[in-house]
């Protein structure tokens, strides 16, 4: 049996793929509200306040209340907005975020089931392909809103995304060279002896910095700098369309954490029996997500020219140097 669109290293029946897709989606879908709540609680504690504590015990069903509020809001569209593009932009963003979940490996093949969506030979390029589609979600949203704040926010996000995507790609190149494969499953397997965070510590740091920029998180949240741009590309959005953008942002934080855990922190590897593998992977993902929240409470926002010169003049040269050194070492040993 051959797959329709691409050769995969492990072929499964179609119904297994469908079940897996639904399972992965449900797990991540239920993790996102938890991350939202943890973020608000943690931020509160770090800023000497309680955070949400009214809805449910310890504010635990606050995200549900938020989603309920957003869903019941009127779907409003500004007069200057371009109808079709304005509506399709949030959908595009959320589509490109959700589809990347397919390549995150939560374990090896166990009992005939590969514990991942698909294992494609192009591996990490799949992630980059869809993060370039995500760009159009932001830009169209800002452009089609017909507002100067939205437009400027979208332009900032555009420049920021393409600048930091280069550093991100270069930082992963070192790992790919050491593992000798682009497939995420193979890369995790290659980390049996030592996690790549040790030999590729420079790449890990670059990846995390670029990851903050890619997900528009503090200290790189210039596209939505509220003091200058109201809320950036999402200014004119309300109701569940705004909710989609928010949801996609947290999804992307989870995905960047997942990719970092896979590429640098040994993915599903950990002590204990093999059925613990998905839990290890999820734990590593959530740990890195917690790091995202921690940074948000700690650092102020960059100035825009600082952000650009940091990306182009510091991150990219270091990343290139890292690739060069890794290449020499891989060939020499």
């Amino acid at each position, binding site marked *: 049996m051959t797959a*329709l*669109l*691409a*050769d995969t290293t492990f072929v499964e029946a179609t119904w297994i793929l469908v079940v897996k897709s639904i399972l992965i989606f449900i797990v991540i879908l239920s993790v996102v509200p938890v991350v939202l709540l943890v973020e608000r609680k943690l931020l509160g504690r770090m800023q000497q306040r309680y955070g949400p504590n009214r809805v449910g015990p310890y504010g635990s069903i606050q995200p549900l209340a938020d989603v309920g509020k957003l869903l019941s809001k009127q779907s409003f569209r500004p007069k200057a907005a371009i109808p079709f593009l304005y509506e399709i932009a949030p959908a595009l963003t959320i589509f490109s975020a959700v589809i990347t979940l397919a390549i995150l490996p939560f374990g090896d093949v166990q009992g005939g089931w590969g514990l991942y969506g698909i294992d*494609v*030979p*192009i591996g990490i*390029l*799949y992630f*980059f*392909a*869809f*993060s*370039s*589609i995500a*760009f*159009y979600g932001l*830009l*169209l949203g800002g*452009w089609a809103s017909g507002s100067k704040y939205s*437009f400027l926010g*979208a*332009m900032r996000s*555009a*420049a920021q*995304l*393409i600048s930091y*995507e280069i550093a991100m790609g270069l930082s992963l190149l070192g790992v790919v060279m050491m593992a000798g494969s*682009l497939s995420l499953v193979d890369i995790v397997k290659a980390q049996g002896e030592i996690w790549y965070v040790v030999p590729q510590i420079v790449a890990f740091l670059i990846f995390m910095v670029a990851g903050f920029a890619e997900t528009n998180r503090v200290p790189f949240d210039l596209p939505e700098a509220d003091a200058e741009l109201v809320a950036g590309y999402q200014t004119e959005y309300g109701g569940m369309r705004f909710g989609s953008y928010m949801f996609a942002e947290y999804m992307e934080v989870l995905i960047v954490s997942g990719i970092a855990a896979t590429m640098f922190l040994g993915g599903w590897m950990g002590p204990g029996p093999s059925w613990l593998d998905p839990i290890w992977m999820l734990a590593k993902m959530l740990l890195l997500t917690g790091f995202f929240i921690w940074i948000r409470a700690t650092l102020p926002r960059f100035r825009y020219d600082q952000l650009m010169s940091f990306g182009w003049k510091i991150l990219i040269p270091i990343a290139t140097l890292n690739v060069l050194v890794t290449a020499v070492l891989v060939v020499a040993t």
Partner: protein
Amino acid sequence: MTEVAFFVGAIGAIGGAIAVVAMRNPFYSVLALVVHLVFLAGIFLLLRAQFIAAAQIVVYAGAVMVIYVFVAAYVGGIEEPMFDSSPMLRIVGPILAVALFVEISIAVLGSSLTALGTDGSDKIQGGFGTPEAIGKLMLEDFLIAFEAASLLLLVAAVAAIILAGRKKAQKEAA
């Protein structure tokens, strides 16, 4: 199933290409080109050329078109055409288009029609579209051509930077 996927990809690609030239607003033209490129990547996937498909999206849709979108979004949004087409252009344009079509048709009919077998992908050895196969082609079999092309690109990039720098220096001197 493959046929359905092919026709979805083909109709999307051709529709996108037509929209590029049919749209009045340059911003929509650029977006139509992105749609065209994405559907083209789908057709590459059907041909088992996964690396080319990913490169198509990352390089063209994700990098080249981003620059186009940038320019069109800043300059564009203009509903009326940017310049009046002269009667000369209206005659010469279609003639050139037809000439190009005839030339490509001759090239296709003359050389590569025999390569279009009806058997499809089992004539080609498996795994030809993987990163490994492409890397072997580029860095072992055609290394010199590949390096020459990369050198050419480097020269172009350096030239662009120097030209931009000279303009800036002139502005400061004035």
